[in-house]
C-alpha cells in the first residue's frame, strides 16, 4: 500500500532556534493523525511546512497525487502546489476568519473552490453549496448571509464545508476546536468524525487538546522542542505513555 503522504526528515529552523527537526512519518489513506505538544513544541511549524505554507530547510513531503503518483511537494512548482491546495488538500484554520472570506456570503465561500477549479454553472455551484451547508448543519436559508453574522461554531463549520466541497483527500487542521465552547466543540468533533468516515478522508490534526485527538485521531505524535518524542496508536500513547514528556502531558490533564 502506498502512503498518501510520506514526510521525511522535515526540518525548519528560525535562525538558531529549531522550529521542528528531523520529523518523519507515513500517513495512509483514511488515517487520521494527531500531533500534540505544548505551545512552541513545533507542531504548528511542522503543519505549515507540510501544507506548503512554510518552506522547510530540509526534508521531503511526498504526496501520492492522483495523476502522477508520489511527488515531493516541497520541490514541485508553486502553481502545482497551490493547485493541490485547492483540490486534493484542505486546510482548516484555528480562526475561521483566517480561512473564510468574511465579506463574501456563505454560499460564495463554499463555492469559491469550485469556481477556482473551473466550475462555471451558477445553479450547480449553488446546489453544491446548499448540499454542503446541510452536511455541516447550517440552515440552507443562511446561504446568502455573510459569516460575520454567524456564531463561532457556525463559522468553523462553514470553513470545513468550504474546504471539503472539492472532495480533498488530505485535510490539515490547526486547532480546529480551539476557542469554541465545550458544547460547540462536541458537535464539531462529531461532525468531523462522520465526515472523515464517510469521505474516507486522511487528516492531520494539530491540537493541544488530548480529548480532541482521542476522539478523532487513529494515531498520535507527541512533540517537544521541535522533535517527535513518541508516536503510536492514539489510545496506547494516551493510556500507556512511554516517554517522560508524554507521561507528564497526559497526567497534567484535569479529569472531569
Amino acid at each position: 500500500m502506498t502512503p498518501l503522504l510520506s514526510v521525511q526528515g522535515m526540518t525548519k529552523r528560525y535562525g538558531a532556534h529549531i522550529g521542528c527537526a528531523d520529523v518523519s512519518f507515513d500517513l495512509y489513506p483514511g488515517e487520521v493523525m494527531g500531533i500534540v505538544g505544548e505551545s512552541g513544541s513545533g507542531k504548528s511549524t511542522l503543519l505549515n511546512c507540510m501544507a506548503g505554507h512554510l518552506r522547510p530547510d530540509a526534508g521531503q513531503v511526498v504526496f501520492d497525487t492522483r495523476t502522477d503518483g508520489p511527488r515531493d511537494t516541497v520541490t514541485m512548482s508553486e502553481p502545482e502546489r497551490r493547485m493541490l491546495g485547492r483540490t486534493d488538500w484542505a486546510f482548516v484554520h484555528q480562526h475561521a476568519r483566517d480561512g473564510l472570506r468574511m465579506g463574501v456570503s456563505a454560499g460564495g465561500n463554499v463555492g469559491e473552490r469550485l469556481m477556482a477549479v473551473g466550475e462555471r454553472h451558477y445553479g450547480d455551484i449553488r446546489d453544491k453549496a446548499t448540499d454542503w451547508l446541510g452536511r455541516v448543519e447550517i440552515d440552507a436559508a443562511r446561504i446568502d448571509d455573510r459569516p460575520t453574522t454567524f456564531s463561532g461554531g457556525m463559522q468553523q463549520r462553514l470553513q470545513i464545508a468550504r474546504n471539503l466541497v472539492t472532495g480533498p483527500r488530505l485535510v490539515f487542521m490547526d486547532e480546529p476546536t480551539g476557542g469554541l465552547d465545550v458544547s460547540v466543540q462536541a458537535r464539531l468533533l462529531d461532525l468531523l468524525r462522520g465526515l472523515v468516515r464517510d469521505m474516507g478522508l486522511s487528516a492531520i490534526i494539530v491540537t493541544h487538546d488530548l480529548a480532541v485527538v482521542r476522539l478523532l485521531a487513529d494515531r498520535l505524535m507527541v512533540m517537544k522542542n521541535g522533535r517527535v518524542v513518541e508516536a503510536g496508536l492514539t489510545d496506547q500513547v494516551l493510556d500507556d505513555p512511554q516517554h517522560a514528556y508524554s507521561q507528564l502531558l497526559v497526567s497534567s490533564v484535569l479529569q472531569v
Partner: protein
Amino acid sequence: MNAYNFAYLDEQTKRMIRRALLKGLAIPGYQVPFASREMPMPYGWGTGGVQVSAAVLTPEDTFKVIDQGADDTTNAVSIRTFFQRTAGVATTTVTHDATVIQTRHRIPEEALGEGQILVYQVPIPEPLRFLEPRESETRKMHSLEEYGLMHVKLYEDISRHGHIATSYAYPVKVEGRYVMDPSPIPKFDNPKLGDMAAIQLFGAGREQRIYALPPYTQVVSLDFEDHPFEATKADHPCGMCGAQDSYLDELIIDDAGGRMFVCSDTDYCEARQAAGHKGKDAA
C-alpha cells in the same frame, strides 16, 4: 508654450512611460508598474490617462477628450485645454477626426479605426482588489492564473440580485490569459473592447499601473453558463436623436419626476441630429 516641454512631461518620463506601454502591448491585459508623476491636477481627475496621452501625443495628432461620453464636461474641457496649451496639438470633438482620444467611463459609439489610440483613465486597475486586499497575493493570482475569486464576485451578485448586477468595470479576460478591469465603462461597452481596430491604453496614475490592448485583441467578459454576459442599456431610444442602439444617460428634467434619455456620447448624438434624425424629446 515655450515654458513647457512638448506635452508637459519631460522626455525621460515619456520614454519611461512608453517603455511601460510597449510592455503592456506585448502582454495584453498585464498590469505594468510605472513611476507615475505628479501632475497639475488631483488624483482621480485622470492623471494616469493624462500621462499616457502625453507620452503618445505627437505634434501632428488631433486630440479629443470625453468624460462619460461628453466632450463638454469640466473634466473633458480642462484636459483638452491642458494639451492645447502644453502640446499645441489640434483638438476636436468629432470622434473620427481624432487620432488620440482620452476617455473616462465610455467607449465612443462610433467604431474606432486603425491609426486611432484610445486612452482610458483608470481609478483602480486591479480587478481582484475588492475581494483580496493584499497586492502580493493578487500579483501571485495573476501570475498563476488563479481567477476563481473573480467568479465569486459575480456569484455574489447573482445570489443577491438574481442576476449579475455589476453594470460597470465589468471584468474581462484578455486573450484567455489575464483578467483585466476595463476601467469603469458601462458593461454595454464591453463587447467593443474585443477585436477593436484601435490601440487601447489604460493608465492608473495613483495606482501607478499601465496596461494595454493591442488592435484586434480577444476580450471576453466573465460570466456563468446559466447566467451569460449581457450588454445592457436603458430600454429607450435617445430622446434627442432617436438612436435605438446607443448608451443612454437618464436626465431628470423637472420637479415632477419628468425625465428623458439621451445618448451619453454627445458627438454621436449631435452627428445624428445633424443628419436629420430626431427623437421624441427634441425641440
